[in-house]
């Protein structure tokens, strides 16, 4: 093993010395300063072609029709090798002629930094504010008046009755219609916006090339029985050939530019681009550059088909390791060259931002596309998979400090070298926010508990925020449903209605004041959870069926494990592994509320339920004593057995309620705990809680304990490490905020802390599953808030993803600043020691 070039510690050490080349520094600056511009290319082409083919009023579009449509778009899009202009903050439109050429051609949109529009999903939500987009306070987009008119006149009207939400509503029937539209305080359904929370199978792209895959589809089509299967195989072929065409058109454009280019160096650069894109992804990749080129070209194609909400890149350090090694051995590349390519790739991946309407900011504020990259961990056989490329990708991440891609590190205690964990910790200390760290042992346990084989589980990549997903073969849509657990607690507290009364929403579980004990309250909550699970999964299945009928996904299916083998589109269950994910928001606040109810209402009876309910409705006005008492109840994240028991019970209930249900593709629902910024959005709408939380305050983020509830780090980590991993099958985001110190031991201290948190204590507990750090220097934050223009790239950890501080809403900034901060070194320091041992001769 030690003979592997990619495991040479001297080479790893050398990586640390590499800095960003000036070319990348310049491109990065342009990237950070660029204002997103609405891109008309996709909606314009799609609308025209769909109209020509009369697809807009259809209740069913076959996968083959869809594939032909996309192929034509791929053959019609303008192949952009290097953008001619960009819109820069504070400057306006500037020409990019003379700027460094990228090492990858093509882009997600026609703009330098584009906002792609998906009128078949949620683009129409931007309609009311089209003219306001360039002027709105948070995350403005540039749009030209003529483009506003074109969208208003031509494009949006075409989709009024043809987009997924409306088709679903028309099918829903009275009872579900209200559920689709009216319960935004209870849950959010993300199939309205697309299904892209997954990882394509880039392994087959790199190994075989798309032409070979297309040939396989053609062969299978010939042998296939039934029109549906033949359609599917023809569709896969169309999709693959369309993607190949896109690559070849980029290549041709680069070659044409090279012909016209007077500068010899740029001409050579363009020729290299032309060569790489001619080869990849049509043929198997032979070099590291071809590998990245193939992935990027496919990425363009997949994003034509689906809006980017957490479409993830998977385990790049595994996918590309052989190509990188071969290049090194042949002397085709060195570390500097590879790092530069990766930096280019990182910038390309962030070349688009999701089109989010103003209010969406409250729930998904300042998020990029959450394109997760996963590094390290073990291979399918359980062997250490950390290699030089893992380190190189990490180095690129900490040098670039970008919100996209969302880099996640895997660490397998006992298998991966501790130096890998220390390296991950160093990156966190340097960036203050990334990467998140996942415990392979706990994650693999959770995944195998849901039926993945050991090999499939070990080959997991992170999707979106924190959701582990068997890479390239699991179509899990881990963000399908977001649930506000606090509103479910409300249903139990208020007999199945909202606080202000009104019609029965959940189940009338009776007046908690009349319950014999806490057990009865738990049963009531359990019934409400069941109601919610039934309701949300029915809606998700309804939306899934709409996707099957009007939005099959031939492009993603063409580079995924399963559809080719089974002859079934992904939307119909073609993947090897199927599932849907539920993200639960507000866990800590609900556990704390349960413990307060148990202790004060049902056990000690220090307060009657009616009095408590009245206090909640008054937001504790005049009830400071009661509130103080409630807030001292056992807290989630502490050692208290009451808190631990309630947490374990609730995690189990949610897992049972959702995990027992089978989705429209035949996969099970899984539950995860991450919140994006919904804990602030939903928190602002929620009333006072039995935990003592005041109305409007943010919920705790992810699965993190409530801020301030558990001031001791060891206690909190110990409790979190004891949570049942097998009930957390769709990931968790555990935020730990440190005030950094520059003492030399910090890296080792942080690594030892993570190692201890991951430790299963000789089988006494599961071991922590995930942790993500916020390392904020208070003075840096103060300066960034005072002078946002100087800190365009200050990254902060939200929940599951990182964002630029300047993009966050004031409420979200406040939430991050008010998180419990643990010290990496106490005020005193450990002192300065002089040895007396060395007596002068």
């Amino acid at each position, binding site marked *: 093993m030690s003979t592997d070039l990619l495991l040479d510690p001297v080479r790893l050490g050398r990586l640390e010395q590499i800095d960003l080349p000036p070319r990348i520094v310049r491109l990065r600056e342009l990237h950070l300063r660029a204002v997103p511009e609405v891109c008309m290319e996709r909606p314009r082409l799609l609308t025209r072609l769909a109209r020509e083919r009369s697809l807009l009023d259809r209740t069913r579009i076959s996968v083959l029709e869809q594939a032909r449509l996309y192929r034509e778009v791929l053959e019609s899009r303008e192949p952009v090798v290097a953008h001619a202009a960009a819109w820069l903050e504070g400057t306006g439109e500037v020409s990019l002629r003379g700027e460094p050429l990228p090492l990858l051609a093509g882009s997600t949109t026609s703009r330098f930094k584009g906002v792609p529009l998906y009128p078949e999903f949620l683009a129409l939500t931007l309609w009311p504010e089209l003219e306001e987009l360039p002027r709105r306070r948070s995350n403005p987009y540039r749009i030209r008046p003529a483009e506003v008119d074109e969208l208003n006149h031509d494009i949006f009207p075409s989709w009024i009755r043809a987009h997924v939400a409306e088709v679903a509503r028309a099918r829903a029937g009275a009872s579900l219609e209200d559920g689709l539209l009216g319960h935004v305080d209870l849950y959010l359904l993300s199939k309205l916006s697309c299904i892209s929370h997954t990882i394509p199978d880039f392994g087959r792209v790199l190994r075989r090339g798309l032409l070979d895959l297309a040939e396989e589809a053609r062969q299978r089509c010939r042998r296939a029985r039934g029109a549906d299967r033949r359609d599917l195989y023809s569709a896969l072929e169309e999709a693959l050939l369309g993607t190949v065409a896109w690559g070849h058109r980029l290549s041709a454009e680069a070659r044409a530019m090279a012909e016209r280019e007077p500068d010899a160096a740029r001409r050579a650069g363009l020729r290299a681009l032309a060569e790489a894109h001619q080869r990849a992804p049509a043929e198997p990749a032979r070099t590291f550059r071809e590998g990245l080129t193939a992935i990027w070209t496919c990425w363009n194609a997949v994003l034509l088909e689906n809006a980017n909400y957490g479409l993830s890149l998977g385990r790049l350090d595994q996918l590309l390791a052989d190509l990188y090694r071969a290049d090194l051995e042949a002397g085709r590349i060195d570390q500097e060259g590879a790092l530069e390519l990766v930096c280019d790739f990182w910038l390309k991946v962030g070349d688009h931002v999701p089109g989010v309407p103003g209010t969406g900011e409250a729930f998904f504020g300042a998020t990029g596309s959450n394109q997760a990259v996963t590094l390290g961990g073990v291979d399918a056989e359980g062997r250490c998979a950390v290699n030089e490329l893992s380190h190189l990708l990490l180095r690129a991440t900490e040098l670039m400090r970008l919100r996209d891609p969302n880099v996640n590190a895997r660490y397998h205690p006992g298998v991966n070298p501790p130096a890998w964990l220390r390296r991950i910790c160093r990156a966190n200390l340097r960036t203050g926010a990334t990467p998140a760290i996942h415990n392979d042992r706990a994650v693999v346990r959770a995944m195998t508990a849901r039926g993945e084989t050991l090999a499939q589980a070990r080959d997991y990549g992170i999707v979106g925020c924190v959701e582990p997903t068997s890479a390239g073969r699991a179509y899990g849509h881990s963000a399908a449903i977001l649930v506000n657990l606090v509103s479910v607690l409300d249903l139990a507290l208020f007999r199945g209605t909202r606080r202000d009364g009104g019609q029965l929403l959940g189940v009338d579980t009776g007046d908690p004041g009349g319950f014999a004990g806490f057990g009865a309250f738990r049963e009531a909550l359990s019934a409400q959870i069941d109601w919610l699970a039934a309701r949300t999964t029915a809606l998700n299945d309804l939306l899934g069926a709409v996707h099957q009928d009007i939005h099959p996904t031939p492009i993603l299916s063409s580079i995924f494990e399963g559809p080719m083998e089974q002859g079934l589109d992904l939307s119909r269950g073609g993947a090897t592994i199927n599932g849907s994910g539920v993200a639960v928001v507000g866990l800590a606040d609900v556990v704390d509320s349960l413990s307060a109810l148990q202790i004060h209402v049902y056990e000690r009876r220090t307060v009657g339920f009616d009095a408590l309910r009245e206090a909640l409705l008054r937001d504790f006005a005049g009830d400071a004593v009661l509130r103080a008492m409630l807030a001292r109840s056992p807290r989630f994240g502490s050692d208290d057995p009451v808190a631990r028991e309630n947490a374990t019970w609730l995690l189990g209930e949610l897992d049972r309620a959702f995990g027992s249900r089978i989705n429209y593709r035949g996969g099970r629902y899984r539950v995860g705990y991450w919140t994006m910024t919904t804990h602030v959005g939903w928190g602002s709408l929620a009333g006072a809680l039995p935990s003592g939380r005041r109305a409007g305050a943010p919920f705790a983020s992810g699965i993190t304990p409530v801020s301030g509830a558990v001031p001791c780090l060891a206690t909190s980590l110990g409790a979190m490490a004891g949570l049942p991993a097998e009930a957390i099958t769709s990931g968790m985001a555990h935020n730990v905020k440190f005030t950094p110190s*520059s003492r030399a*031991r910090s890296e080792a201290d942080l690594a030892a802390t993570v190692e201890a948190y991951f430790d299963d204590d000789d089988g006494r507990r599961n071991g922590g599953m995930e942790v993500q750090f916020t390392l904020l220097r208070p003075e840096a934050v103060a300066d960034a808030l005072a002078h946002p223009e100087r800190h365009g790239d200050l990254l902060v950890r939200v929940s599951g993803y990182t964002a630029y501080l300047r993009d966050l809403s004031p409420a979200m900034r406040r939430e991050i600043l008010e998180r419990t901060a*643990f010290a990496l070194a106490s005020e005193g320091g450990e002192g300065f*020691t002089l040895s007396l041992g060395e007596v002068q001769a």
Partner: protein
Amino acid sequence: MREVGSPLVAAIKRHSLEDGPGIRTVVFLKGCAFRCSFCQNPETRDPRAEIGFSPASCIGCGRCVQACPRDAASTTAPERIDRDRCDRCARCAGACPSGSLHVIGRTHEPEALVAALLRDRPFWRHSGGGVTFSGGECLLYPRYLERVLRLLVAEGVHVTIQTGGGFDYDRCAARVWPYVRLVQFDVKLADPRAHRKHCGTDNGRILANLRRILAEPGLEVQPRVPLVPGVTDAPGNLEAIVELLVDAGADRITLLPYNPLCVRAGDRVGLPRPLHPERFLTWEEEGAARERVRRALGARRIRTAAPEGPAKGDLHPRLTVLGSTDRSRQGA
């Protein structure tokens, strides 16, 4: 002082990075013979339980006033409790809904204490850490320590003792030293009169214990001098301590940076604030003390390496004064 029953534990601090090697779990026992003006933990002086008050969480409900049988609690007094009237019955703490008033000091049976401590085993395992006993003066309780330490050491736990030197040597040598890996021994003042002035007692016993423990075979001893402006950095003190340590055979000396938290540390238990500076010293300000120690060592023909300065852009350069023994050994 005779050891009667179990001592009270004032606090257990988990995940400490500065109380011995690795990540430590620190147990603070109550009771100390000294009255150092710069004490960081004045709530651990008194061996008895007492009432602590944290103003930040007080909601001003006045339940303490109703609960107190001696009329010692008042919501208008900033310190809340009239300590002269208070007989520590703790009814106020029992009535306090927010925990703003609370009891400091609880007994822990050795088995229960060890079980609670062992929760942190994963932290020790991966950092080379362990348990540190501090105080107060934890060595006032060798019998109790022996019972606890025996259990800990049986679990393979690394134990550190922090002491101010006021203990019965022979009893500790018999009951405690066999279980201990490291003793962090604080030496504040060499001069007995200065010691009486700033710490309330003579230092004869401390220095005698220091000399004996430094001669103890197989016990790692780390003498530490807390820097206190105008007290421990007074002319001649650092030099005298260096002399003393070199003569006694110490192999190192640690300067603890001045910690201004000592000024308000007694607020919680109603102690008056000492007149010490309320800010950290800068690395440069501390440099004078380091230089004095180095010169004193030079006079004894001992050369030391220059310590590392604070890292660039450091928030609290004064907090990160460090230099491990390993690093400074490169000096010769």
